[in-house]
């Protein structure tokens, strides 16, 4: 089991969701986060006071998958989120030790799907 964490551009969320559904990955958690990588943030000016390097809005996806779904998931996120410009984001893959479905108390790969 793997946990896929992806940081993407906010406006790419719909396309990524679309691609994930096509890859039959239906279980995702989405949160709004701030951050910047090489894109180096944005400049904001308030009453002449200039703030550079401010954090940009990003979307964070968390998806728990069984091993055979890992590659399709990565492909779907990449396909949906890629523009080729800096700021497209990153995908992190972590080993997932356990997963419990609360309603049935099922565990492991059965609980993920």
């Amino acid at each position: 089991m793997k946990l896929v964490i992806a940081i993407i551009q906010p406006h790419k969320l719909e396309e990524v969701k679309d691609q994930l559904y096509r890859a039959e990955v239906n279980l995702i958690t989405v949160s709004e986060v701030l951050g910047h990588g090489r894109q180096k943030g944005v400049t904001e000016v308030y009453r002449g006071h200039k703030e550079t390097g401010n954090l940009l809005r990003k979307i964070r996806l968390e998806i728990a998958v069984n091993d055979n779904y890992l590659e399709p998931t990565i492909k779907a996120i990449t396909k949906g989120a890629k523009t080729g410009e800096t700021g497209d984001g990153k995908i992190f893959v972590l080993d997932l030790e356990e997963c419990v479905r609360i309603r049935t108390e099922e565990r492991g790969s059965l609980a993920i799907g």
Partner: protein
Amino acid sequence: MNSGDTAWVLISAALVLLMTPGLAFFYGGMVRRKNVLSVLMQCFIIMCVLGIQWVLFGYSLSFHPGNGFWGGLQWAGLNGVSLEPYTDYAGTIPHQAFMIFQAMFAIITPALIIGAFAERMKFSAFLIFTLFWATFVYDPLCHWVWGMGGWLRNLGALDFAGGTVVHINAGIAALVTAIILGKRTNLDKNVPAPHNLPFVALGTGLLWFGWFGFNAGSALAANGLAVNAFVVTTTSASAAGLSWALIEWFRNGKPTIFGVCSGAVAGLVAITPAAGFVSVIPAIIIGLLVSVFCFIAVTIIKPLFGYDDSLDAFGVHCIGGIWGALATGLFASKLVNPAGNDGLFFGNPKQILIQLATVLVTVIYTAVVTFVIYKLVDIFVGVRVDEKTEAMGLDLTQHHERAYTVLE
């Protein structure tokens, strides 16, 4: 000179000014949060730019007697616009009181168009477009309908508070800009939800409140006619808000606050040309029906043709305005206003034809000149922001500000 009249017109001018910030919140709540400041900014900068344009030359172009087609520049810089009454427009208030009341109409009209091109227009292009549009579309049309010697005025068109000059005019300009500017990116995948419906409700409240100045103030006196306009204005808004909610309830299963707000604004639009000519029962009919027409325009016609009138400036203001102009030709009565005329239902079928002709002239003139101005601005500065800017939002890219922080 009458101190009561003067006081009422000055207060009305302030009420109408407040409608533009009201509109800013009405529209600002409907856009995505990355663009809310851009909408507020567009509304507020119009108050600044047109506030100056009007006293420098806009008022003169619109209201100096001139000829049938334009007012001329004799009153430029308010030269000759005194603190004494100018009896051709209003005999009991200072000429400058009339002038500043009209200024607020000149400000809100181009602000209405913002709803059509929200979330994708370059700020610099917007500024140039607005200034030219006010000068070459609003000012001439205002002269034709309201100015001394204006040819539509002489034709006998009834437009009490600006159904034609303000709402049909802005609504048609909205449709033209929405069509030639094109859709917002990714719209087919995801129609963005309004980011703050409480703002929409707040804006509606401010508009409704300000509209008393807009319509009842257009009597230009604190008299019975003003009271009639006041009563029918709020009645029509009530009827239309209720009607929109009921339509949603029957059609979609649930009434919405967004629907009530849209309906109330449509009701205010529709009663605008009629406010000084119709009584209260026609006002209820005008209000109940305007929501039907506008609802069809925004939920059926817009998707059918696929233009992206983002915040329904055309669907509410133009459709509501046209219905109001025609309804004036149906329901107008000399019993309400001896200076007006009777409509179809009061034995004068000719009035509806005059109203129809005025609507057609407005639609054609505004559409053509708006198109030309848009194309010229597009050639010289480019009207639409690029795709990346649109994705990041206009607040950060056009103004280096954001409305909401995520961390403290």
